[in-house]
């Protein structure tokens, strides 16, 4: 399907624009990565354009048409309050993506910082930071998030905060292990020998080299964050009804799973598709960001 493009060694004869195109091509030719990216871009568009795309308001109840089956008016039917399932799914995408984005931003920032400092500093600083990190890691992520939400009350902010706290240690652990492999490399020693300060070496030389594996982990943790939010909402501990979230919709539909299976199923399908897309993206990035892994595992899988 696609031949491996060898890294170009005679770059000065090739215009930059073509190099950029070639690199982009390498990413886009990866089937898993491009499929995952396509789904996520589509979802983001749907989430952003929700007010214009959704045929009905997310909490707009049509009490004459409760638990309606799919029709021209309600493409996926309605729930027990007569709310349009499709519209609620579209609005729910917003919450899910918002949670995913915020959790990624928070856990990437703090996780990278904690991991990088621990890995670079070494010694007792590393010991103490990593013992604390391991204690947090020892809790199952979802349980930790559950406990935090239970303690702080359920709101969108608290869900994001709780899930971030639960997944930051994972990023930190990965970051630290990558930084440890980079720290002894000669260019780090060389930049110290030439008078760079520790913080500069860390920011300019260690972090950029450590990012690829961390980006992969973060993509996958975005998927877990979406699952966690859906799980919390399903249990009634997440974003509170009547706000439309995919977890809430599954929970609303579970009482009618035999008569109106489409309610829960469609929301479940949304979650599954998003999570799979994020995982494909993560796998794809793993394959393409690491030159040694560039064997297109995704191709065989599909």
């Amino acid at each position: 399907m696609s031949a491996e493009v060898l890294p170009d060694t005679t770059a000065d004869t090739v215009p930059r624009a073509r190099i950029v195109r070639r690199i982009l091509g390498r990413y886009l030719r990866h089937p898993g990565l491009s499929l995952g990216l396509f789904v996520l871009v589509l979802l983001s568009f749907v989430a952003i354009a929700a007010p214009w795309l959704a045929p009905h308001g997310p909490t707009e109840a049509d009490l004459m048409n409760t638990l309606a089956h799919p029709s021209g008016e309600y493409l996926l039917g309605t729930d027990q309050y007569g709310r349009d399932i499709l519209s609620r799914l579209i609005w729910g995408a917003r919450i899910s993506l918002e949670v995913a984005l915020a959790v990624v931003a928070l856990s990437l920032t703090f996780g990278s910082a904690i991991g990088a400092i621990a890995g670079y500093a070494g010694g007792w600083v590393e010991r103490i930071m990593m013992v604390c990190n391991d204690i947090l890691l020892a809790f199952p992520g979802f349980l930790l998030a559950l406990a935090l939400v239970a303690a702080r009350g359920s709101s969108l902010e608290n869900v994001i905060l709780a899930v971030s706290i639960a997944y930051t240690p994972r990023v930190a652990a990965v970051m630290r292990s990558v930084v440890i492999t980079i720290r002894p490399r000669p260019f780090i020693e060389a930049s110290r020998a030439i008078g760079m300060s520790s913080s500069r070496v860390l920011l300019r030389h260690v972090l950029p080299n450590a990012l690829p594996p961390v980006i992969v982990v973060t993509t996958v943790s975005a998927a877990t964050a979406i699952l966690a939010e859906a799980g919390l909402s399903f249990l009634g501990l997440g974003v509170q009804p009547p706000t439309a979230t995919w977890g809430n919709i599954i929970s609303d539909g579970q009482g009618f799973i035999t008569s109106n299976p489409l309610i829960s199923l469609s929301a479940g399908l949304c979650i599954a598709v998003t999570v799979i897309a994020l995982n494909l993206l993560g796998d794809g990035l793993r394959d393409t960001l690491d030159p040694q892994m560039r064997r297109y595992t995704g191709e065989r899988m599909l």
Partner: protein
Amino acid sequence: MSDGAVLAVRDLRTVFPSESGPVTTVDKVSFSLGAGETLAVVGESGSGKTMTFLSVLRLVPPPGRVIGGEVLFEGADIATLSASAMRSIRGAGIAMVFQDPLTALNPVFTIGDQMLEVIRAHTGMGPRQARVRALEVLERVHIPAPAQRIDDYPHQLSGGMRQRVLIAMAIALRPKVLIADEPTTALDVTVQAQILELLAELRSELGMGMVLITHDLGLVAKYADRVAVMYAGRVVETSPMARGFGQSRHPYTRSLFRSIPRLDLPADQPLTAIAGQPPDLARLPAGCAFEPRCFLGNGREDCRNERPALSPTTSDRHLSACPHWRTLLDAEPGA
């Protein structure tokens, strides 16, 4: 000894803790380096050559620690400077070129980015001005078409080119001392000569003191003014290069010189090796560290009991840590 020296080191000691007690990797090392002079530091792997200069720059990797000695840079002791004052010495005062040019550059930035970073951090120049300076130094290390190369990534350059870039970065701030740590071991033989010629040229143009850490005695003979031979963390002999190795006054230096493969001998002749193993730094003998491997005849009482100090031989420019150096001169003229 340190009159007018740009870098003078006295009794430098660096230890690493280990399970079998502290290991002294740099043991009371003293040397001095004048402006425009090339000092070669030779010795086998693990003899403390690199560690000595990492100690000078205070870059000893933990858990290692410098526990004593003076490092005088332009007459001022830098062993007691604050961390940030030390940073401004590194690169701008004393620069180091590392062994392996293939890995001493950050793969994710262009060489221009990396050079600009160093120049700007030390001089506070604006990006444009720093770029001009970077192009100048690249030109100076004879990189063809620097304007085209400056935006290349390290992987786009050959090993020799990368070493030139590293040298360019090291001299960009016109340091007074350039430490070249085995600058050519990772390079092809033909490129090696080019790099060393370049270093010699830069040294005389910029009037830098240069330290050439190496285990290639051929290079030493050709490029160094003075040579310091290290064994087991100590300097065992320092001599002006003009005398050549044939005149060396320490049995270790002699053995080292004899173990160079020779092209003028029949190919089936076995190579000469130094008998025995380098000593375990955690369990050094009480006497001379080289005594167990010494060809002068083992078992001399004084060699075993007392560690000989570096002391003048026939001239006070030629020091040896072997009390029996006269025997060496009588034994064989030249090697």
